[in-house]
Structures are given as C-alpha cells and as structure tokens.
C-alpha cells in the first residue's frame, strides 16, 4: 500500500505517475479538504474574477480519477505521523498504514486574525463575495499572490491598494528592473501602490503601516506569504527546517517521501537544499517521488519555473533572476520581451514578458541533461 497525504497537484501527480510506471498495489490519497483534486493557480485569477465556475478548476475528470484506481479519503486532515510504524493518524481517528508514505500537505498561509486570505477554493469564493461588496480593498503582500489578487480585484472594478515592504511588486521573483515594469502596469490600471513600508497591523478603518500611516480600507486581504504545512509532523521525529528535510531523492526517512511546496530537498546540481513554492514543481516532484518509490534512485534536479498573469501581462520565469539583466528578444517599450539573467557571467535565469514560447526556448540553455522533463523520460522507472 502507498499512502499519499495531500490531494492537490503534487499528490495527484505522484498517484498518476505510480500507476503510469506500473505500480499495481493499493493506493490511498488523503486530503484535508472535502474537494477532489483542484488547481490553485486559477483561484486568484479566473475563480476570483468569476470567469470560471469552481468546477473548472478540477484537475481531472471523474473518468480519469476512476481509472486511477485510488481510494480518496477527503475532508480528513492528517494529524500525526508515526515514522516507525509508517502510519498516519487523521482528525477522525483513522489510522492508515503503508509501505511508502508521500507527504504532500502543501502550505498554510500566514494570516492576520479575522482577515481573509486565499489558499483554497473556498477561500477564493469567500473573497470574491467580499470584494463584490467592498468600497476599497487593501491587499497586504507584494509577492505573486498579492499582485495577482490586486490585479483581479482591480479588473472587477474594485478600488485597490497594494501594500508591502518591497520597492516594487514581486521584486524578489522578477528583479527590480522588471518588477518596476510590473509596478507601472498596476499603476496604469489604477492600482494604488503603497510599497516600501511594512504593514504592522489592521485597524477598524484600514491598514496600519510602520510609518504610522493608515491605508483606508473596508476589506483587507492578507497575502504575505505562507509556511510549509508541517505542524502535524512536529512530534514525528522527522527533520523539519523550513519544510520537510529530504535527501536528493526527496526521501525524508525510510519509506517516507515529500513532494511539492512542503518538501525541502537537496538539489544536487545547485548543491544546496531547495524548497519551491510553484505549481510545476508540485507536479514534477510528485512524479520524481513516484519513480524513486519504484526504485529509480534518481536525484531530483529541476529547473525552477513559474508564471503569473496580471492584466495583459503573462510573465514566465525559468531558473532564477540574477543581478545582471539583458533583453535579448523584443523590447521593454513594446511590453513583449525575453530577458536573460546572469551572475558572475553565468546564465541563471530567463524571463519572458508576453513571450512564453521564446522564453521556453531560451530555457534550453539552463537545462542540464538532468532537467525535470528529460530526467522524467530517461529515468529507469519511467513508463
């Protein structure tokens, strides 16, 4: 029996890959939420805007899930892991024992008491209802999620202020020159940017900044980061340090693996522990874990990748931004370009702004033979 704790992208990908690669044993997927696996990136965009019905976020059709021949135990959070017994205890007192356990419990958003955030489908629907009746929203958090929520809210016609400590939205993920363009994009669509000052609290009439200024709001949305959902593992004996600490095979202990946002594993190519909070990693790491469960003994060495859609901009980043940036295709003025990032003369990342295909083509140069896609196909266990 294989038990996957977490019924989102990483857990589903692992389950599918196990079957694809020939695993015929019993397979159980345990999920904290009531929902069948659904996709999270659309929550802050298509679901929040109302463009999609919630059902459209379902990751697989009923037929595809049935073909998976897995037991889904939903609405029952894991509360304890017994490493020696390889057993997971749940909130409803189930005990699930397995030869191999995959931990894919994702993230818990950091919150402010009483203020909405956005992590789950239910959160997105609740936030949509709040946005529709508010007169001014302040989004606290200038990362990917905060910037996406601000953009979507603005497109719904809501007056929006985006607050956070960075000089420009997503400065950490995009580097300052490109983040500056994103700031311009938000401003041009009427988002009030109030950046460069940390938020210290929420008052009845708005959001308090460290400067003493209060940003007026009747809705405060919290999007200032999240933490790996490892609270339930505190007494397990597993090493926890900004995620579940794993070896290069994504193994936390004998027969226990981790995948997705919650996993911090040793990335052999980079030579350092890495934890990635992005959609593609959830899937690729789930697949890598499935291969290793089946004996592939392959290190997981992905090229990180994420994308974001805000207003008319589709931004794709492969690898990491670095200090030196050069535009190699298109132009900043046209808002359509590919930028390459270097550190000490070495290519570290590629960014496309409304040029996804071209950015992906440049990605090839970042890719060693051990990139996720090619590694997945060349792994001994691959179907």
């Amino acid at each position, binding site marked *: 029996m294989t038990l996957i704790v977490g019924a989102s992208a990483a857990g589903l990908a692992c389950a599918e890959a196990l079957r694809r690669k020939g695993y015929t044993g019993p397979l159980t997927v345990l999920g904290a939420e009531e929902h069948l696996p659904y996709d999270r990136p659309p929550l802050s965009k298509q679901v929040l805007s109302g463009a999609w019905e919630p059902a459209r976020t379902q990751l697989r059709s009923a037929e595809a899930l049935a073909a998976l021949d897995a037991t889904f135990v939903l609405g029952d959070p894991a509360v304890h892991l017994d490493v020696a017994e390889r057993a997971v205890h749940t909130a409803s007192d189930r005990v699930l024992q397995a030869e191999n356990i995959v931990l894919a419990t994702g993230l818990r958003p950091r919150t402010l008491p009483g203020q909405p955030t956005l992590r789950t489908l239910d959160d997105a629907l609740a936030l949509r209802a709040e946005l529709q009746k508010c007169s001014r929203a302040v989004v606290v958090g200038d990362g990917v999620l905060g910037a996406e929520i601000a953009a979507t809210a603005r497109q719904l016609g809501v007056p929006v202020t985006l607050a956070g400590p960075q000089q420009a939205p997503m400065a950490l993920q995009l580097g300052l020159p490109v983040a500056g363009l994103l700031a311009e994009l938000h401003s041009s669509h009427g988002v009030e940017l109030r950046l460069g000052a940390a938020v210290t609290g929420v008052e009845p009439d708005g959001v308090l900044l460290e400067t003493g200024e209060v940003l007026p709001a009747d809705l405060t949305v919290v999007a200032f980061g999240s933490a790996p959902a490892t609270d339930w593992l505190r007494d397990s004996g597993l090493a926890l340090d900004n995620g579940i600490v794993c070896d290069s095979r994504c193994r936390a202990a004998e027969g226990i693996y981790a995948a997705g946002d919650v996993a911090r594993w040793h990335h052999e190519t980079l030579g350092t522990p890495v934890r990635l909070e992005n959609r593609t990693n959830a899937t690729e790491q789930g697949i890598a874990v499935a291969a290793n469960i089946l004996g592939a003994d392959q290190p997981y060495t992905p090229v990180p990748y994420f*994308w974001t859609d805000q207003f008319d901009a*589709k931004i794709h980043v492969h690898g990491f931004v670095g200090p030196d940036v050069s535009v190699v295709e298109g132009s900043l003025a046209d808002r359509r370009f590919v930028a390459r990032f270097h550190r000490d003369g070495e290519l570290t990342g590629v960014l496309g702004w409304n040029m996804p295909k071209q950015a992906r083509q440049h990605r090839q140069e970042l890719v060693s033979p051990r990139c996720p896609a090619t590694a997945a196909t060349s792994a001994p266990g691959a179907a």
Partner: protein
Amino acid sequence: MKITVDQNKCCGAGTCVLLAPDVFDQRDEDGIVVLLDAEPPAELHPLVREAASVCPAAAIAVTS
C-alpha cells in the same frame, strides 16, 4: 489514443513541447498550445501521457 487540448486553460508553460515536440507546439504570439497530432503513433503514447500529467494547467486530456 485521442488527445484534446483546452487552449483557454493553457498557461503557455511549454512543458508538453519539452516532452513531446512531435505532438505539441506553442503559438509564437502568446505561447498557447497547438496540437500537431491528435492521434499520435503508439511509441509516443508514454510521452503524451507524461505531458498530460505534467501540464501545470491541466489543459491536456487523453482518451485511450
């Protein structure tokens, strides 16, 4: 095997093209998926299934 793609779900990541360039491509202007071969030969089926599973927008569906 019959493949369908949902261009409205596609996010333009291009992971399908990395895996199966004979089956998938991307539009030059916006990176959205283009299906080159909806019924590819059997030797490509494992890669296509992998591409459908790895697609970060769940925009590829495969029926056998």
